[in-house]
């Protein structure tokens, strides 16, 4: 090939490619796609979200919204990897445990002004308590779309067969305490089934034990996050209670045991109400109940898990993403979201609204578990740099999950290890 032919070919190729390269983005500019990462792949959730997105697209021609379902187990890792790779989504669901990292990082766009300026938004209807975790210096950085209380599902069939009183009977008698609850679990465990399962704890996700230790008024660290309180008397008492339930009475299945409440193998499980959808039907169905967490030595309490939605401040469509978030969380769409995710809006916190969308639960259950839980609940523990704290505490607590563990010594070593990190 001579140099001349080569030059000719190159010119011809450039003539073909360059107009296309210029025209391509022009075509693309007419369409804007917002991408939101979520950890649910549930078809009903996606159908509802897509319906809301269609409504937004109808108001904003040329805009589409896609929902990117990531696996829950590696959700935050995948999300941060996408951000590191320069492929951040426009919006994302955020877990309560990593709220502090996201809110304080400056990665999220501020929302207060945009929400207040949206007609009919009624920002004051969103409870102050529910948004506490998602604010920094008074500014709102994410909308808490799901505020889900922890409660106890009970398999009344197993409890009755074992000859124990049901939680409902104990509540009726005003004796629904942790001592009595763990007795029921131990009795059922003695009968050959399993007692109480703290769902998703699995001797790894220790923060879920907050659903028990809050009954003792225990916390992993002080409210300002600066002081470790793992070794305080309340936590030592609560953890001793849990340790004894695992290794002495067998009320809680031990480490390395794979037991599921929803297959009918255990008396009780602590989990969030959204898990009601896992209750078996047909031949596998059992008589179940949903009751609030028992009272502990520190009295009555409730614990909630939260999830927020934030809009990333580094993309090209920040304003549009914030606008979509305002649309997604307006009163009308919040009511739709409330079908699956307990709402943070005061106006939706009533048995009528919740009952219409949670047919499995009775008005009493909604009142005592959901509404009381959301109104009075303390959110699961979180902290800046939580992922690392979680792993370090998990590694230290492994020593606690042995029959001969010295609870006080292990908890003291947890504090020794994490104090420099707080």
């Amino acid at each position, binding site marked *: 090939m001579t140099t001349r032919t080569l030059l000719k070919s190159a010119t011809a190729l450039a003539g073909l490619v360059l107009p296309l390269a210029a025209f391509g983005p022009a075509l693309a500019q007419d369409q804007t796609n917002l991408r939101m990462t979520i950890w649910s792949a549930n078809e009903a959730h996606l159908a509802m979200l897509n319906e809301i997105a269609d409504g937004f697209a109808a108001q904003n021609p040329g805009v589409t919204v896609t929902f990117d379902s990531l696996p829950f187990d590696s959700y935050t890792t995948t999300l941060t990897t996408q*951000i590191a790779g320069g492929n951040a989504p426009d919006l994302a669901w955020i877990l309560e445990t990593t709220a502090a*990292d996201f809110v304080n990082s400056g990665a999220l766009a501020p929302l207060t002004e945009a929400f207040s300026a949206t007609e009919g938004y009624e920002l004051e209807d969103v409870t102050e308590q529910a948004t506490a975790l998602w604010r920094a210096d008074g500014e709102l950085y994410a909308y808490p779309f799901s505020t889900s209380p922890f409660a106890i599902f009970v398999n009344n069939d197993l409890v009755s067969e074992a000859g124990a009183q049901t939680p409902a009977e104990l509540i009726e008698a005003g004796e629904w305490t942790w001592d009595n609850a763990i007795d029921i679990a131990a009795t059922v465990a003695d009968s050959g089934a399993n007692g109480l399962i703290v769902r998703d704890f699995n001797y790894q996700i220790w923060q879920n034990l907050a659903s028990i230790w809050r009954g003792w008024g225990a916390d992993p660290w002080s409210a300002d996050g600066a002081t470790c309180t793992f070794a305080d008397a309340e936590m030592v008492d609560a953890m001793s209670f849990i340790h004894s339930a695992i290794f002495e009475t067998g009320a809680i299945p031990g480490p*390395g045991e794979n037991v599921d409440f929803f297959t009918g193998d255990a008396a009780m499980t602590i989990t969030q109400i959204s898990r009601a959808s896992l209750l078996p039907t047909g031949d596998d169905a059992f008589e179940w109940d949903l009751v609030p967490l028992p009272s502990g030595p520190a009295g009555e309490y409730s614990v909630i898990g939260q999830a927020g939605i934030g809009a990333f401040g580094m993309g090209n469509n920040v304003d549009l993403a914030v606008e979509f978030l305002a649309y997604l969380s307006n009163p009308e769409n919040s009511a739709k979201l409330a079908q699956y995710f307990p709402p943070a809006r005061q106006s939706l916190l009533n048995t009528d609204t919740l009952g219409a969308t949670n047919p499995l639960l009775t008005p009493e259950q909604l009142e005592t578990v959901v509404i009381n839980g959301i109104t009075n609940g303390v959110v699961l523990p979180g902290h800046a740099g939580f992922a690392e704290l979680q792993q370090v505490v998990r590694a230290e607590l492994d020593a606690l999950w042995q029959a001969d563990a010295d609870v006080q010594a292990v908890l003291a070593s947890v504090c020794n290890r994490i104090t420099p990190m707080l």
Partner: protein
Amino acid sequence: MTVAAPPSTRKARKRPFWTMERRDSLAGYLFIAPQMIGITIFVLIPLALVFWYSLHEWNVLAQTFRFQGLANYQTLLSDPGLPQVLGATTIFSIGLVIFNMSLALLLAVLLDQKLKGITLYRTLFFSPVVVSLVAWTIVWGFLLQNNGGINALLASVGIEGPNWLRHPTTAMISVIVVQVFKNVGLNMVLFLAALQGVPRELYEAARVDGTPAFRQFTRITLPMISPTVLLTSIITIVGSLQVFAQIAVLTQGGPGMSTTVLVYYLYQQAFQFHKFGYGATLSIVLFLIVAILTFVQWQMRRKLVFYED
């Protein structure tokens, strides 16, 4: 010796650009281009970038990327978790290499027989190699649970099995065994091929001399297959330092930090704790360890490998 230039016209003096030599070179470069482009994009550039990242504090969420010189390397020296991690990595690698190579050699010797259906056995032992690693590990995870299949089997013969993945020692043993059973077939096939390449007459001569079987193995078989032993040992050691999925699925580095090996630790630092700069520093450490071990093994070949004499 000088040769006078032949008298020539201007046109004749100008050599064509595409001489035979240049054409040959171009063809050669084009042949290696796909490989070189791949290595450059996927190995050399990332390697340089990892070193560059290790000199920075990179917070993904806050979108900060700040040069801080050797600060990450200083952190490395004062990291309270690192000694445990290096200890776990060493135990894992030594355990894995010894168990994997001895089992592979034993299986190869046993399967190097002319028996009916021997191919079936060879296929059977090799089959885990082609099974998906994560699927393999998840199934083992179920078997190793306290109320899992292995303890049920032990209980049926009256033995109370340990809680395999919840005690530091048994967790490490479990992870090693699961990894060895997965990959032993590969080394076994390599050993088998090497064994079949050993000339039979050497054994005949040894038998005539009355050499016992074990002595035949140590004096004939091992020296003759020593190049394969070197190759498999390098592959196995390098592979053992890169173990990740088994740890992530079976133990997540626990109990405590007893099975947190270097690759898992750097994954945690970079992808879970968002410390990409420090994660990059740890991967430089891993790179150096692998490079040094491979170099040392390669240097030892003259001593250990029969054919290198």
